[in-house]
């Protein structure tokens, strides 16, 4: 039972491009939607997060777009750089229940 569906599984973009990673969920009780970034050999680290009372959140070059009616949210990376090459996970939780993660997207940004 996959509670958070993430796509695509992998993504290759050129430097300066705008990769978009999408996630969808079913559980309407979810109220916190973080994205984690993981570099090879490291643990995931929180990148940016959003709550369903806003439709968009920006932090630097990273933007989350949230569509509550469609139960979807996405991560956009503006002006992508080779250093953004990593695996990205979306996740969701309600209150203090453990996070449920998507399957991850491996992003490669080529110069």
């Amino acid at each position, binding site marked *: 039972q996959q509670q958070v569906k*993430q796509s695509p*599984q992998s993504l290759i973009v050129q430097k300066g491009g705008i990769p978009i990673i999408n996630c969808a969920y079913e559980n309407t009780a979810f*109220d*916190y939607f*973080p994205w*984690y970034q993981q570099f090879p*050999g*490291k*643990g*995931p*680290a*929180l990148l940016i*997060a959003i709550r369903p009372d806003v439709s968009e959140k920006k932090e630097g070059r990273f933007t989350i777009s949230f569509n509550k009616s469609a139960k979807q949210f996405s991560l956009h990376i503006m002006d992508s750089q080779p250093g953004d090459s990593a695996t990205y*996970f979306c*996740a969701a*939780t309600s*209150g*203090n229940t*453990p*996070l*449920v*993660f*998507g*399957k*991850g997207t491996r992003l490669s940004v080529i110069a």
Partner: protein
Amino acid sequence: NAGVTQTPKFRILKIGQSMTLQCAQDMNHNYMYWYRQDPGMGLKLIYYSVGAGITDKGEVPNGYNVSRSTTEDFPLRLELAAPSQTSVYFCASNRQGADGELFFGEGSRLTVL
């Protein structure tokens, strides 16, 4: 401030052996978690704990056991290792009410042959 520390980083086990993965955090977090990560499968929750003396099963608890005798430590025990337990294991922690902001260790890569 070391954050979340996992040991060992790498281990090879034979089928049927047992071992314990250690996890310690120095952030005084109440909540601790064990996830396993398999290629293309994301992070799956094995067990979690909301405080010393309290543990609960996650999505994939079979073949594992945990204990939480202190706030700082949350070891994961593998009994009778099987090839299906070959994975990268991550320990994580957060404070109560953190709404999902997890702090992860660097992982323990386990191979069962």
